[in-house]
Each structure stands twice: as structure tokens, then as C-alpha cells.
């Protein structure tokens, strides 16, 4: 193998070291939140953490796996439902939140083996059908009593302040775990496979990447994330009405966050969640027009800024906060930017 002294491969850049350190510091500061903030602020931040989980895991599915699902509310709702059931069976309420997500991740495994054989739009709506079916089946449970719903009564065992703080810590912890899992996943061999599939599935398969197995890992991870988010949402909302949890609006939120933040970028999904959180805080009260705005923004971003704000920044400024890819140094930057990475098939017929 020829070793060109002018070219070397590196993962960690000074910027990425600072970013990781910065992220760790931010998380550490956030962990002390309940000591300083009032319950209202704590609840808001808890919501933000749940949004980050939703955005990051939906992005893993769509942005990295190339699988747009409009049915992730299936796992969101099932996560909440499983938590209700576990708590009802006497499991500690916070343990049941986590356990519920693990169980639903296991449930998603058989679902994946058959949904993943659908392509593109068929997968997207097929997942919606799965969500509808889950919703209807959950409604049959006598504990849930159809749309009447039930609530996580076990939470009453905790005093209000303790409950808010616990919710906050569990959500923060869950978010951190999700981020770390995805970070480790993307840096592993699976990560290279994921990115290869994202860029060109057929080429990846031709190079011996296990496309199905890799997609299944992402699918289960995304289901785990959505279920965890659903269970956490239940902990903050206490009541479980199937309609709210299995509603397609959750998918709308996820799509909005990821499209605006940056489809297929790790940082973008977090940014998108933050933007969504702020927009909701400012405009959420305007009701229907707020939803029209969300849909219109998603539509416009998908057509004109398909890689979102972060993707745009990344391309514009070569920004890379996290050491997820490899940077090859010594190649002229012009050549790097000119390489098309949108996966479009080259036009045929050269001679």
C-alpha cells in the first residue's frame, strides 16, 4: 500500500474534542437542573429531552437508514401503554418506563423482519397502518377502556416536587443514553455500513454490507427511542388516552424537527428538536395556524433545503463538531466539495 505523506486519516479534530467536552459539561450542568429551576421550567426541559429522543431516533431511521416512517407513533403509544401495564402489575413506576421501552424494542424486532421488505412510500404508509392497528388493539384492553384511557396512578406515590425532578432526571438520562448509543453505533463498523447504505444502498450491498441486518438494528433502535419517549411522555402527562399517543401528529413533529435541523446529521436532529421546542413555546398557542406552519415548513425544507439547517452549515463552513466520519487530509478541498453525496444515480450513456 502506498503511503502518501501528504495524506493522513483522522477522526478527532481539535474542534470535535472541544465539542465532546462541551457536550459533557452541558449535560453535567443540566443534571443539576432540579436544584435550581422551578417545576415549570423542569417540565419544559423534560419535554425538550423527549423531543431530542424523538428527533434523534427518527433521524437515525430516515436520515441514516433511508427509511421514512409515518408510523413511529406506534412505538410511542406502545411504550406508554406497556408502562401503564407494567406499573399496573406492580413494577416500580420508573423502572417500568425503561422496561416498557426495552419490551417494545423486542416487539419491534418481528415487525422489522417484515416491514423492512417494503420500500419507500410503501414502508412509510405501511408503518402508519401498523400504528393504527396497535392503536385499535390497545383500545381493546379493558384497563384502557377504549378512548377513555387510564392514568399512571402509581406516580401518585411520589410527592409532586420529587416526581418532577425524577421525571427530569430519567428523561435527561434517557436522552444521554440514546445519544451515546447512536454515537457509538455510528462510530462502529455498523456506522460505516449505515452511512454506506444512506449514500447508496445498492452499491453498499454490492460491497458486501449487510443491508438488511444493519437496517434492522436501526429500526429497533428507532422503535426503542420512540417507545422510551412515549413512556417518558406518560410520566409527565400521567394520563394515557390512546388517541393522543397514537396520533400521527407525533410523526409530523419528528419530520419537522429532523427536516429543519438536518436530515442525516447527528447534530442537526438535536438542533431541530431545540428549534421545535422554541417554536412550540412561542407559537404553540396559535393552534391550527401553528400546525399549518409546521407542515409548510417541513414541505419547504424538504424541497429547498433537504439537508436542513445543520446540513447547510456543514456544507457551507465544513463544520464537523462530532468525530463521526473520517477526514482525509491532504486532498484539495475543491475536490472534496465537488463529490456529489446525494446518492443520485449518474446519468447513463457515456461513450
Amino acid at each position, binding site marked *: 500500500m502506498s503511503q502518501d505523506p501528504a495524506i493522513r486519516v483522522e477522526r478527532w479534530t481539535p474542534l470535535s474534542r472541544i465539542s465532546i467536552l462541551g457536550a459533557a459539561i452541558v449535560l453535567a450542568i443540566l443534571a443539576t437542573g432540579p436544584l435550581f429551576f422551578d417545576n415549570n421550567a423542569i417540565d419544559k426541559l423534560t419535554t425538550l429531552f423527549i423531543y431530542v429522543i424523538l428527533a434523534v431516533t427518527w433521524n437515525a431511521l430516515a436520515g441514516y437508514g433511508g427509511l421514512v416512517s409515518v408510523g413511529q407513533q406506534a412505538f410511542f403509544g406502545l411504550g406508554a401503554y406497556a408502562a401503564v401495564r407494567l406499573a399496573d402489575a406492580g413494577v416500580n413506576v420508573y423502572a417500568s418506563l425503561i422496561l416498557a421501552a426495552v419490551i417494545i424494542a423486542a416487539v419491534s424486532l418481528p415487525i422489522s423482519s417484515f416491514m423492512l421488505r417494503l420500500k419507500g*412510500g410503501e414502508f*412509510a*404508509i405501511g408503518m402508519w*397502518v401498523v400504528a393504527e*392497528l396497535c392503536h385499535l388493539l390497545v383500545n381493546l384492553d379493558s384497563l384502557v377502556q377504549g378512548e377513555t384511557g387510564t392514568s399512571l396512578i402509581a406516580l401518585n406515590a411520589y410527592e409532586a416536587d420529587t416526581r418532577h425532578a425524577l421525571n427530569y432526571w430519567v428523561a435527561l438520562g434517557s436522552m444521554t443514553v440514546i445519544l451515546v448509543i447512536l454515537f457509538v453505533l455510528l462510530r462502529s463498523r455498523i456506522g460505516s455500513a449505515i452511512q454506506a447504505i444512506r449514500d447508496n444502498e445498492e452499491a453498499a450491498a454490492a460491497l458486501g454490507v449487510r443491508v438488511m441486518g444493519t437496517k434492522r438494528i436501526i429500526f429497533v433502535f428507532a422503535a426503542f427511542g420512540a417507545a422510551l419517549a412515549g413512556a417518558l411522555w406518560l410520566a409527565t402527562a400521567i394520563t394515557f388516552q390512546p388517541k393522543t399517543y397514537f396520533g400521527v401528529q407525533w410523526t409530523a413533529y419528528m419530520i419537522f424537527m429532523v427536516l429543519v435541523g438536518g436530515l442525516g446529521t447527528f447534530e442537526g436532529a438535536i438542533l431541530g428538536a431545540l428549534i421545535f421546542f422554541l417554536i412550540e413555546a412561542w407559537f404553540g398557542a396559535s393552534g391550527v*395556524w401553528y400546525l399549518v406552519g409546521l*407542515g409548510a415548513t417541513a*414541505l419547504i425544507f*424538504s424541497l429547498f433545503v433537504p439537508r436542513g439547517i445543520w446540513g447547510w452549515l456543514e456544507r457551507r463552513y465544513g463544520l464537523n463538531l462530532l468525530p463521526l466520519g473520517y477526514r482525509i487530509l491532504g486532498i484539495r478541498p475543491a475536490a472534496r466539495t465537488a463529490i456529489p453525496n446525494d446518492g443520485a444515480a449518474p446519468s447513463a450513456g457515456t461513450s
Partner: protein
Amino acid sequence: MMIWVNQIVQGILLGGYYAVIACGLSFMFSVMRMINLAHGSLAIVAAFALFVLADQYGLNPFTALILVLPAMAALGWVLQRTILERSQRGGLLVPILSTFGLSIVVDNLLFEQFGADTRSLAPFIDELSYDSWSITDDIYIGKLAALTFVTAIIILGGLQLFLTRTQLGRAIRATAEDPDTVGLIGINAKRVNAAAAAIALVTVGIAGAFLGMRATFDAYAGGPQLIFAFEAAVIGGAGSLWGTLIGGIVLGVAQSVGAQISPQGFLITGHAVFLAVLFGRLHLDTIGTTFRKTVRRSA
């Protein structure tokens, strides 16, 4: 016993409606290789348009279709040229994301305009909404349901004739097969696709009319209609015209029989049969591929 027969008859008739709503989705899929997630919402747009024309201007829904269907065609053309065409250039994911975004916009604009009330076109079509022919004491055929079913057959037959007998129809088929090559024989693929989208939305408009006449609808009714259309189209084999009629009938019968079993059974059985058909087909494909491989190896 006769109750079950009646449920099956009703299911078959219901399948006619599903065929009407599914054929536009299937048509767009076969021509443009994309699934329009705003499909159901656009049917609701047509239903509301008919409702307004009937409610405010006293127009009979059938007469009002003379106005609404051209408007739907124009909407389809504009939609294709402004949103869909651009989204198709963005790869596989973008059409799904953009049409989903569009559906959210449409649904909520309808909600903004019409609120949460459910509406129906049934009051404007007088006895047609409830009249029926009795076949036996237990089996009856609703006139509206029969009309819907006949319309489904006319639409599907008409589309087939159109695709095989007219120059535009042939151009649509050629563009579906090889959009890059049609330009070389003088066909403007963009205009052909826009025409196809216009035709698809005319069928969506008709579906919206029948939905409004046979049931109630509200601003957020588009999602379920998309799902039904999708299920019928997939059961029938996505992209196959007469397949959508079979798919619609299978879905309708499943729902109708399910409803007889339990009140919640209508939707559950429908979804379950859809997933079962999907699973069966994927499974058969695997068996088929393995079989072909074995044959090839031994040959």
C-alpha cells in the same frame, strides 16, 4: 347465515368506493413512481368543496361535480408542476416528506376553515342516500353503494381505454416506463406527468364526492382515507388498475365481516387482512425466488 351473506354483499359494494379512492393513488404510483401522502386530504378538499356548493349555493352534489372536477384537475396539474416534480428530483425520500408536509397543511387549513364539525353530503342527495333494493328479506343493495360500484368500474375501464387507445394515454405509459427516453421522440415528460396528476386528482374528486355522500367527514378525515386507498392498492398489487377493484373488494369484505364480529372489528380486520396479504405476498416472493434459484441451479 343470511346476515353473513349480507355483510359480504355490503363489503363488496364498499369495495367499489375503495377502488375509486385507490385508483388515483395507484395510477400516480405506476406513472410517477411516487406515493402521494396528501391523497386522502385532497379527497376531503373535494368533499368540502361539494359541501360548500351544496350548502351555500344549493347545488346538487352531482351538478357541482361539473365545477369541482375541473378544479381538481387544475389542482393536480399545479401540484405536479410546483411540488411533486421538484420533490421527485430530490430522490426517494423527498416525495414522501413533502407530500406528508402538504397533507398537514391541507388538513389544518380545512380545520381552520370548517372547524371540528363533521359534515355529510347525504342531506343534499335526498332519497339516494338511503334508498335500496331488497334482494331477499336479509339482503339489500343500497342505491348509492351500487352507483359507487358502477362508477368504480366505469373509472377503471375508462382509464384502461384511455391508456391504451389515446395518444396521451400511450405517452403516459411510455413516460412511466422510461421517462428519459420519451423526450427523444418529442414527448414532454413534465407535461405528461402533470396531465397524469390532473387525471389522478379527478378520480380523487369523485372519491371525495362518494365519501361525502355515503358517510361523514371532517377536516382530519384524510389520513384514514389515505390508509384505505393504500391498503386497497397494495392488496390489489400496486400499479395494477383492475387490481385496485379486487383490493378494494377484499378490504371492504374484510371490514364488513369484521364489523359483524365486533364493533371494533371493522378497522382491525381491515388492517389485519392488509398485513396478512402483504406478509403472504412477501413470503410467496421468497419461496418463488428460492424455487427459481433451485431450478436454475439444477438446469
